[in-house]
């Protein structure tokens, strides 16, 4: 059992607040991804869980133990660092065996575990090498194998794939997912790559400016962003936002059209729609085409709607040119609304 509970954790660096009161629960064996822009506090939160950073306030629980006062070695965690941190003075074998030897396991058990994790990560043939003789991808594998060999309750990974080239990243991503699902550990994985987050996660926690903005499964995060930030951060291209003014009870005027919407206690809110959730048709949002970008399966059209930008993904069979006028009909069940003051979703 290794459920992780983070209670009211905050972290200040001098006068700067890197984390504002974070509350979060990661279920046993869950693959949780922390996603957010650079500098939002992902690494800080991960290091607090690992014990490499002390929180300014709050509690961290792993299983039924409170760990925030314990040193890293007593927390039952293993960590994979962004720059791998493979020990340069030890062979790959000794790197993987390092933690096992610290735990004073018998040699036969050390051999067994090193062999098994090395096979799992496909590095059996590298066991005698030093880290200086490995490629980036191989070092990455050693780092993961070293963590897995500990058979920890929790594996923490800080952007483990960010130093690899695109192709290798894709390959390692799929591999990691398989290996970690099998290992039955609870995983917290930090990334700022939303595609990586979507493809790996059981649940994504989106962070912004030291806050956790939303924790939900990937589709929920994509479909129902809890905050404007989530919609604008996730999705490529991101969500579109258009100003809406009150036209009556549950009625809002968007780009000159009246559409049904929520009952918000404001006169102005924001209408939001994803680029792929619009189609061409009668009586839609009038848009003037500015840029046309063919992407293969679809064509990304950037348009102008009363001075606001609106992006739409249309079928690549459609021939559009800058200057054309389109009528874009939003799919009614995909329309979302946000409060421009609180930046939160309005339902």
């Amino acid at each position: 059992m290794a459920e992780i509970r983070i209670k009211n954790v905050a972290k200040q660096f001098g006068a700067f607040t890197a984390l504002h009161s974070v509350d979060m629960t990661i279920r046993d064996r869950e693959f949780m991804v922390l996603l957010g822009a650079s500098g939002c506090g992902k690494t800080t939160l991960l290091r607090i869980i690992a014990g490499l950073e002390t929180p300014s306030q709050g509690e961290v629980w792993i299983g039924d133990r409170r760990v925030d006062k314990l040193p890293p070695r007593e927390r039952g965690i293993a960590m994979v660092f962004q720059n791998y941190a493979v020990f340069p003075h030890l062979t790959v074998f000794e790197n993987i065996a390092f933690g096992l030897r610290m735990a004073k396991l018998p040699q036969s058990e050390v051999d067994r575990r090193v062999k098994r994790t090395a096979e799992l990560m496909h590095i059996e043939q590298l066991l005698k090498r030093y880290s200086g003789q490995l490629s980036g991808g191989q070092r990455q594998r050693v780092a993961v194998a070293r963590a897995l060999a500990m058979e920890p309750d929790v594996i923490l990974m800080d952007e483990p794939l960010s130093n690899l080239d695109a192709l290798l990243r894709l390959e390692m991503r799929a591999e990691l997912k398989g290996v970690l699902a099998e290992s039955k550990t609870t995983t917290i994985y930090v990334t700022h790559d939303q595609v990586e987050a979507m493809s790996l996660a059981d649940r994504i926690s989106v962070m912004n400016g030291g806050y956790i903005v939303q924790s939900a499964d990937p589709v929920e995060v994509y479909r129902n962003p809890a905050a404007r930030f989530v919609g604008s951060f996730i999705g490529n291209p991101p969500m579109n936002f258009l100003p809406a003014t009150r036209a009556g009870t549950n009625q809002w005027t968007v780009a000159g059209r009246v559409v049904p919407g929520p009952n918000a206690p404001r006169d102005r809110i924001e209408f939001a729609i994803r680029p792929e959730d619009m189609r061409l048709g009668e009586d839609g949002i009038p848009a003037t085409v500015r840029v046309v970008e063919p992407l293969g399966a679809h064509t990304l059209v950037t348009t102008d709607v009363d001075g606001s930008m609106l992006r739409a993904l249309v079928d690549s069979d459609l021939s559009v040119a800058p200057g054309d006028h389109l009528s874009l009909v939003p799919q009614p069940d995909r329309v979302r609304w946000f409060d421009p003051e609180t930046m939160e979703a309005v339902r």
Partner: protein
Amino acid sequence: MTTATDTVSVTRDEVRSASKWLFVAGVVMLCIWVLLPIYFLMINALSSPEEVTSFPKRMFPSFDLASVTFFFKFQGVLRALWNSVQVASLTMILAIGLGAPAGYALSRFDFRGKEAFRFLVIMTRAFPLPLLALPLAIMFIRTGLDDTILGLALVHATLALPFAVLITFSLFSGIPVELEEAAWTLGCTRIQAFYKVILPLALPGIAASAVFAFVISWNEVFAAAVLTIQNRTLTAFLLQSLDVSPLPLKFAGGAMLVLPALIFIFAVRKYLFAMWGIANR
């Protein structure tokens, strides 16, 4: 138009070749400045006593070991040599024993007054030894440290310490913190992580700065001459007997002083360059 550009390019070429010439001349001058005395020292040390005093000088040594043998048989030399080795070894231990932890702390911890501390470390070199020698001598006599190996080693350690701190500081700073943190997450205490990960990686550099401390003590003459009477180190002994000893002895003694320093410095040059931020190519 064409002529104008020509003139410009000509002058530019002239400037370039002139500065290149200046550079080469500078390098040659420096080499002569350093190498010529060592060259003469070696020639004379390896020549027979008659050749040393005769004229003209030889360009190549005759590899006659008479001077060297004479030097080692000279009254008190061996004892001074042994004193030098002891003082330098003790200096090395003190400088690294105190300097390496300080260098580690400077590279890994943030504490109040860290910058001031680093400045102070360098400031210790700003007090000229002659100024401190008299009060030191009095203090040493009062505490009974005068004319002892330990007393002199303490002074030499003070001289070597700033270098030890700065070299080990840059050494530890060059080892990624993540390696240490990875060791902690894999079951190490702070001390275990240091011994199992940091020390093996830093050892060559630490050895280099130890050697440097040794050389500083080996070559130091002023404190050695003021603070010791019976237990003279080789430098102090040679200084004392300089005007009464024959020329071959001086040359052989000089060579004995220069040689260890030269060998050691050459062996650890990579780390000294690292300290000064020069890449070794």
